[in-house]
């Protein structure tokens, strides 16, 4: 599979957003530095000193540009990026990748000595690096981090993990996202990469939380619908009887994706929610929005 950034259209879009957010002097500086990226020392210095040149304010990006980026970049979103993050990713995307070994070492060294904001930029750049399959171990390593910003850079609006992580690493990403209370609706490929093993793990996780009298994010059932079987079904029954409407809606949504006959029967016992699902009034994204508002209010 080609790196997402090999798309020329995406490259042009990216440059346009950078350009409208920096002064002409900074734009020239970036281009000058990216031309020297076969010199790893120069590249290091450029990468490190980006915020000195650009500041750290949030970028401006038009709706139109966001839409095009999502399309060209397989769901990529940069709306909440800061300018230093954007410019660092741009530098990485434009780095000279002719010599594969040197390219790998240069970027790997940036990871090894990265401060917090650099880590965020480096992980954000995964979908635009050359030789994408080469970075899957690095991505899996990043999921082991406990630094919130680094985790979000990997998990949220980033198309790389779904495209390149093996199942074991992907399942870690999803589990850790729930564990660390990340906005899981921003995980690209959450439903597409659902699997039986993950379903079992998430169910165990829910049982642990219940045993500890802790709440469970109803979105964890987002990954389980297609894999409901005799082991998972009791969880659905439990949710269907929950006092929390969000739990009942999650159960109905999961059951609506299942071909397991008892799940279909259970869905029929929740007629109000079922019709909301059929009419398109309720789906996982709507539920995610309700959960977010619920959390903000509590």
């Amino acid at each position, binding site marked *: 599979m080609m790196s997402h950034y090999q798309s020329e259209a995406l490259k042009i879009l990216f440059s346009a957003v950078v350009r409208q957010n920096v002064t002409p002097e900074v734009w020239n500086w970036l281009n000058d530095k990216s031309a020297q990226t076969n010199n790893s020392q120069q590249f*290091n*210095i450029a990468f*490190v*000193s980006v*915020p*000195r040149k650009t500041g750290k304010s949030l970028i401006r990006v038009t709706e139109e540009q966001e839409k095009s980026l999502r399309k060209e970049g397989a769901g990529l979103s940069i709306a*909440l990026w800061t300018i230093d993050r954007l410019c660092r990713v741009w530098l990485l995307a434009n780095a000279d990748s002719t010599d594969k070994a040197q390219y790998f070492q240069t970027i790997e060294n940036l990871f*090894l*000595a*990265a*401060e*917090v*904001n*650099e*880590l965020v930029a480096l992980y954000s750049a995964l979908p635009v690096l050359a030789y994408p399959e080469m970075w899957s171990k690095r991505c899996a390593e990043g999921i082991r981090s*406990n*630094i*919130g*910003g680094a985790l*979000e850079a990997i998990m*949220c609006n980033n198309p790389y993990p779904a495209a390149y992580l093996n199942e074991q690493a992907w399942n870690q990403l999803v589990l850790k996202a729930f564990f660390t209370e990340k*906005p899981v609706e*921003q995980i690209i490929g959450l439903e597409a990469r659902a699997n039986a093993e993950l379903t079992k793990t998430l169910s165990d996780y829910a049982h642990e939380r219940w045993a500890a009298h802790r709440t469970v994010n109803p979105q964890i059932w987002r990954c389980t619908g297609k894999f409901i079987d005799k082991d998972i079904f009791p969880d659905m029954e439990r949710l269907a009887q929950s006092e929390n409407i969000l739990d009942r809606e999650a159960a109905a949504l999961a059951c609506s994706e299942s071909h397991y006959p008892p799940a279909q029967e259970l869905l029929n016992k929740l007629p109000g929610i079922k019709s909301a699902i059929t009419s398109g009034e309720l789906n996982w994204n709507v539920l995610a929005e309700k959960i*977010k508002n619920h*959390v*903000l209010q509590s």
Partner: protein
Amino acid sequence: MCCSHNITEKDIQPGTQDKSYLERIKGMQFFDPHIHMTSRTTDDYEAMADAGIVAIIEPAFWLGQPRTGVDTFRDYYSSLIGWERFRSSQFGIKHYCTIGLNSREANNEALAEQVMEILPLFVYKEGVVGVGEIGFDDQTPAEEKYYRLQLNLAKEAGLPVQIHTPHRDKKRGTTRSMDIALEQGLDPAMVIVDHNNEETVKEVLDRGFWAAFTIYPFTKMGNERMVDVVKQYGTDRIMINSAADWGISDPLAVPKTAALMKDMGISDEAIRLVTYQNAITAFAQSGQIDESDFATVKNVDQSLKFSGNTILRGGQQPRTDKSSIIIR
């Protein structure tokens, strides 16, 4: 570290905590320009935030036992700009650091050579506000060699220098540290001489350097003495820090000293200068301190509301009720 005073029965009794001083410094903001948070707990971070500490500098130092390889230095520097910076942000405290090879470990020359090679990788990083803490411990030729080399590095990078002055033979060690800084062509306005006392302060100020005072029980300054220093020398180029580390030290030394100064009739403005502003002025010469960042890291609510999106939440840690025997 405590080691040499005469211990009496009274000294080893468990203490009681009187936090009423917090009332007297309510609303004040503090900057502790020397504290080793790597060696401290989350309880300390909570107490520091509660006492009004909004930002800190963590100098690279000796971890209590010698390191045996360059990789452990790399990981330590990395943790100062990575993990510890993040940990601090969870409590709403902006974390900066200074990076350097400490004097004790400069004596392992084979290792020191390798450490010198990786220092440039770190000193240019965002939030690195100086080269430090460097200087003399035993005042050996190896210490002098790496002290000079690191002064050159600071000069080249345009960064302030944070100088650790020795515990033993302090007065001469301090004079010598300043002599060498001038010989290497540094501007004294870019050099913060740390761990001063009544014996060293006059020369440091007279020669145009910044004078930092470490409020550290038993071995360095006590804060009653500090009040007298400020009364005698005023506030120009004077700053206070805790240098709290793995020894018996106090991460609240700066706010406590502010409270004591207030009790002793020192003006609020003078307190602000020596417990906040002067340190910022000195280290902001790095171009790496932006006071508006203190509010950003602190104000979790503001970012929470941004576009109703939780992604910008600072990820601050929920508080636990310390007085309860129930842990949930």
